[in-house]
């Protein structure tokens, strides 16, 4: 906001009671969402008359966003003012897009999901307020609980039977392991705050202190990864590994963790290609999808057709042909989005995700406590990793890992876990500005 008044800084810090920047952005996002729903209603009118639910869902969602904003304003939070509007846009656009997919006859799984979308802004606001009121000490003491959940969730899913990618096919929340993502950020932040200074230490026999600190972090981190490996949830392991690398880089100041870690990951993938035939099939599907049009390359090929069909400006909201894209509600939703809103619209969507990720680094830079800074950095990393894995997989930049796009893909657990992530970001930013 560049109105030049000295009373309000460009960073959106509020002077006084009302969070006006947030409100303005929120209204702007709301207009986008309403317009998207109205466009869909034109199509509904061709098939049937409008139902009360057709208005109710967007109205409820936008009112909870507004309620979250009012909550934050009334309780005088100094939290970052861009996170909630961004979340409003993502959630609202996702809701409208899933609604639009339903008009093409693509099945919508359950109504509970809509409820989760509607509740998400409130959850975010409440987590932020809780963090602000109760402070970080409370959060750090909670880290043992979060590790327990990180260990427990995949174990429960594994014992519970349906062991593929943490899916249990319950009502609404199909992948409970999604919650591991924010919890592992909290757990690692606590762990690294305690052991961080020893990681760089040269004390002890051959740097024993440093070795012990490394081992502690690695062992605690890697045990749940074995459980995910048993579930063949490769995307989850990649996400957590990258988060570990980035947080270790952040706490020690050594970029070599990131460099060696990523090259190790590529090396591991390369050797897996040679030893595990299933991985080779995946790799073939990624590198040469057009040679296997009916087999392994089918999904990615049809996703690329959709993207290609979008041309520059897109086919228009509701103008695409999502019916022919496989898994269009979940993994490949971005292919349909790119087809309908074109390259500028896609740029806006990726831009919002990446903006939030970059913003979290700015939030981290304003922290005095390392624990809070680590949480912000971890949340930011989670956002860009998840975006990269999903969108990169759809456009054939990287192999497909089956990771949902938060708030855009159908997936209640992913939406819930990301409302926790946004809540953590908001809370941490509020602490720094107190």
């Amino acid at each position, binding site marked *: 906001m560049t109105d030049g008044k000295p009373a309000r800084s460009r960073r959106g810090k509020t002077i006084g009671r009302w969070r006006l920047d947030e409100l303005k952005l929120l209204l702007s996002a709301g207009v986008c969402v309403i317009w998207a729903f109205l466009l869909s209603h034109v199509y509904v009118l061709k098939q049937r008359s409008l139902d009360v639910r057709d208005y109710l869902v967007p109205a409820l969602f936008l009112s909870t966003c507004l309620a979250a904003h009012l909550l934050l304003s009334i309780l005088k939070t100094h939290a970052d003012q*861009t996170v909630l509007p961004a979340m409003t846009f993502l959630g609202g656009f996702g809701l409208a897009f899933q609604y639009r997919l339903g008009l093409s006859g693509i099945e919508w799984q359950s109504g509970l999901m809509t409820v989760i979308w509607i509740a998400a802004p409130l959850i975010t606001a409440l987590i932020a307020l809780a963090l602000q009121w109760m402070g970080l000490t409370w959060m750090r003491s909670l880290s043992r609980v979060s590790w327990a959940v990180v260990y427990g969730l995949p174990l429960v899913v594994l014992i519970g039977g349906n062991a593929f990618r943490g899916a249990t096919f319950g009502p609404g929340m199909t992948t409970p392991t999604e919650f591991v993502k924010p919890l592992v950020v909290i757990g690692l932040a606590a762990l690294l705050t305690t052991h961080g200074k020893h990681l760089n230490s040269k004390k002890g026999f051959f740097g024993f202190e440093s070795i012990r600190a490394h081992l502690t972090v690695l062992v605690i981190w890697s045990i749940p990864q074995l459980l995910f490996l048993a579930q063949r949830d490769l995307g989850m392991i990649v996400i957590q590994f990258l988060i570990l690398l980035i947080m270790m880089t952040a706490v020690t100041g050594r970029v070599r963790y990131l460099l060696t870690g990523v090259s190790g990951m590529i090396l591991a993938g390369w050797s897996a290609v040679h030893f595990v035939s299933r991985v080779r099939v995946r790799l073939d599907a990624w590198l040469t999808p057009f040679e296997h049009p009916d087999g392994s390359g089918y999904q990615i090929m049809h996703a690329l057709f959709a993207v*290609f*069909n979008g041309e*520059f400006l897109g086919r*228009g909201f509701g103008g695409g042909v999502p019916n022919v894209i496989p898994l269009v509600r979940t993994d490949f939703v971005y292919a349909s989005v790119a087809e309908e809103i074109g*390259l500028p619209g896609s740029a*806006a969507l990726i831009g919002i995700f990446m903006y939030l*990720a*970059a913003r979290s680094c700015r939030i981290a830079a304003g922290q005095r406590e390392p624990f809070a800074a680590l949480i912000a950095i971890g949340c930011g990393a989670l956002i860009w990793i998840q975006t990269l894995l999903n969108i990169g997989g759809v456009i054939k930049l990287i192999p497909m890992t089956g990771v949902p796009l938060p708030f855009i893909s159908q997936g209640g657990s992913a939406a819930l876990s990301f409302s926790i992530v946004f809540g953590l970001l908001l809370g941490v930013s509020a602490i720094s500005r107190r």
Partner: protein
Amino acid sequence: MDRSVLLDPASALHWIGSLFLLVLILHFTWRLVANAAPTQPIKSPLIRRLGRIPLILFLLILAYQARWQLAGFMDPDFLAAQRGFDPRGDLVGNRFHRGEILDVHGKPLAQDVRMQQGLSRSYALGGRAVHLIGYHDAVYGATGLERELDDILMARRMSGWRDAVRLLGSLFVHRTLHGHPVHLTLAEEFQAATADLLGGKPGAIVVIDPRDGSVLAMVSCPSFDPQGMTPDRVRRLREDADSPFLNRALQGLYPPGSTFKVLDVMLAFEHGIAPEFTCSHEGFYCGPADPVLHDFEHDSRGGQFGGHGRIGLETAFEKSCNVYFANLAERLGSRNLMDAARRAGFDRPIVPVNRGPSSMSGRLPNRDDLHIARTVRVAIGQDAVLVTPMHLAMLAAAVASGGTMFQPRYLLEEKPIPYRYLTDSNVAEKVAQLMVRVVESGTGRAAAVDGVVVGGKTGTAENATGQSHALFIGFAPWPQPTIAFAIVLEQGGQGGRVAAPIAGALVRAARDLGVLTRERFHDGR
């Protein structure tokens, strides 16, 4: 966005509405990002670096998406798959139409037809022109002219600013893309008739216009139907011992056999000699350690052959007397022979005008000063001399056109270009007259056609791995030849008995289909 929706008022309204949504989304994103314009730089260099990762990823993802969304049609594999498998193509008209391949009269030889799902390439001549035209398949890629002319057929070629503007426009609206058609120099009926002459036996025929190098027919046998390629069929074709995928006309290397004698008599005329030699049935004796060179009749007729006796150049050429040409080769020397072979382009690939498939490079002995035993074998087209049927057709064309070869041309739009100079027109005319006599009264009598003066030379090339290859090169009608051709029948037997009748049938087909009266530099317009 699809422009056809503008015809429907409701859709037009929706289109404008969608565009407005795009504006709203961009406006929101802009305000969001502008709100975060940094006033204070981040102090920690590490966090600043970590914060740069999302920006880099944003650019990377967007660039890679644009590579599909805008420029996907530049990726041949992607476009082939999209044409073949994208079911939405017919719904929104966003399907790329590959240009047609047309014959000289504008009849389509290869064109897109709408199938149940996607577009499929249909070939009018099927297997009868598959080696020249090739095929274009979503899975198996492209071969032949389909591959060589891919950038024209896919409208990717840029010649001039108009094409550049079109290409730039098609980045944003793909529907403006429509491939260019190409006009070939061959005629559909003549190509079909030529293909039927081989009767399924392994071999090749190349017919070119000696006046401008236009390729009038090119056939390789055995062939296959380019339509309906399935993995199973492709595997069977690949395992077939007769290699149906091989284009024998351009990639098959054969010893030229007695057709090489055309170069021998050319050298004799150039040196102004027409000696007489005594050719007994004992053959030509090179040295105590070397094999004796015999006439063909020595083996085939055995005891009944008494040798050709004392004969001159004309009779020797008519009867294709090996012993005579061995004597002549001794007189001419291997350097001259190799020089003539190189002038005929036997040591290199035959490259067409601008675009189209090239032949393989011919092979010659790797040194010029050959021992006499090898020299005499080169003179009768054996030893290490290997050429493609295309090379032989070019040799026939050079003789027919007065000593100058024209570069093969597949496309009507290409201008004829003189390629190589073989010999001067007097010599060429003398050689051609000898070839006419071969058909009138020599080994090539089976190639004679009523009312058309045909010239030619038979060849029977010894083959180390089996029966001899039967060859025939020739031209018609003398004295103003409009076609020159080479016929090779793999392990077919004796050239005069097997290949010459096919040559006769070829000339008859050319006469009946009006190819012999074809205009020079015909460009079809």
